[in-house]
């Protein structure tokens, strides 16, 4: 037995190749003999066939096939639309109160939302407290989208041999230092930032919240870049800034929500005061979470823009 395992191990390690090789009954394959001409002919045929089959010029059959495909696609869409319309026609009537959607779930959100979450805006209270796991997943969607965009578009520090270098100047077709844009941006950008911050901080009191406010700030940053160029923004926004902001915001989000989930599930006291409803500093974790979400969204939007424009920050 031991001998056999030793043999097997030897064979696996390719140290002694003769153990089982001779025992095999498979026949040694003879090298295929072929004249050079036939080989060349075969290669030529192969290329030729590919050219024939996949030629760029549209043959008649391709056109017919395309027409058939288009008609089939249109018929399919019409069929789906017809079925969906039938389904819609059987659904409960829009705008009426008496239907399955308005049940005890939404009733509790409306009736007790203010007391249980401390948020005046019931929607914010719902997405950041009652259904916070969804929202956490959603900020991770943003995170992972940023990462995929970084993978695709960030320039490598070391050039790969087969990488096509983009030689064009990015601002070639734009007027440089456009006076109208710059003057307008001088007024608009602070106003946009202020509005974005207002929307984020008042997320639990008025319409808006982290997502909309973050997107507004991101749009403001993009306007600033288009007016003044990347030289200005590189001073305060680098790769490190992006990493630090999104890491700290997401980490805080993750830890805060883990704490809240853990205490909630184990019936522990959460020790987070809800504050007086209607004040800025109220509603427990919702305000810091809104700030985190806003930061993540703003940084993500700006990162998308930078990556699309030049592949680095």
């Amino acid at each position, binding site marked *: 037995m031991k001998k056999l395992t030793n043999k097997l191990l030897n064979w696996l390690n390719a140290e002694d190749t003769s153990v089982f090789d001779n025992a095999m009954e498979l026949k040694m394959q003879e090298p295929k003999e072929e004249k050079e001409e036939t080989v060349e002919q075969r290669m030529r045929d192969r290329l030729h066939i590919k050219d024939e089959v996949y030629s760029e010029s549209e043959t008649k059959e391709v056109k017919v096939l395309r027409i058939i495909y288009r008609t089939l696609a249109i018929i399919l869409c019409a069929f789906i639309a017809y079925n969906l319309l039938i389904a819609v026609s059987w659904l409960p009537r829009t705008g009426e109160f008496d239907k399955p959607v308005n049940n005890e779930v939404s009733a509790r959100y409306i009736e007790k939302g203010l007391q249980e979450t401390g948020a005046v805006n019931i929607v914010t209270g719902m997405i950041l407290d009652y259904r916070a796991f969804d929202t956490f997943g959603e900020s991770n969607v943003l995170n992972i989208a940023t990462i995929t965009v970084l993978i695709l578009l960030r320039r490598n520090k070391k050039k790969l041999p087969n990488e096509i270098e983009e030689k064009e100047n990015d601002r070639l077709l734009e007027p440089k230092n456009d006076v109208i844009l710059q003057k307008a941006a001088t007024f608009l950008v602070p106003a946009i930032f202020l509005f974005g911050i207002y929307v984020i901080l008042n997320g639990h009191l008025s319409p808006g919240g982290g997502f909309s406010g973050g997107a507004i700030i991101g749009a403001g940053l*993009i306007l600033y870049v288009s007016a003044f160029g990347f030289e200005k923004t590189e001073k305060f926004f680098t790769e490190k800034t992006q990493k630090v902001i999104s890491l700290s915001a997401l980490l805080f989000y993750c830890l805060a929500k883990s704490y809240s989930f853990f205490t909630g599930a184990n019936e522990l006291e959460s020790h987070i005061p809800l504050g007086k409803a209607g004040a800025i500093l109220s509603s427990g974790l919702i305000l810091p979470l809104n700030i985190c979400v806003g930061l993540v969204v703003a940084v993500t939007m700006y990162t*998308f823009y930078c990556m699309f*424009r030049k592949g680095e920050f």
Partner: protein
Amino acid sequence: MTLFQIILLIFLVICAVSVSFSKNLVRSIMEFMAFSLIMSIIWLTLESPDLGITEAAVGAGVTSILFFVTLKKIHAIREGNKNEEADK
């Protein structure tokens, strides 16, 4: 459903169809922007201002900007507005 909402919804369909039929990429993105904007107004009329703000900032704002930057990168916007051949 008020008349105003119905008109907006019909506009929405018109925008969506014209995106499909326009020959020019820049124009279709403009139409998509209009689509988003009308959508955000519809959401305002449906008493959901949260959605209206978000769609106006994200859909009509940032998404359209990203589309335009992409068009620039794929040379669909050229100097002198020679867009006709850009839509291959």
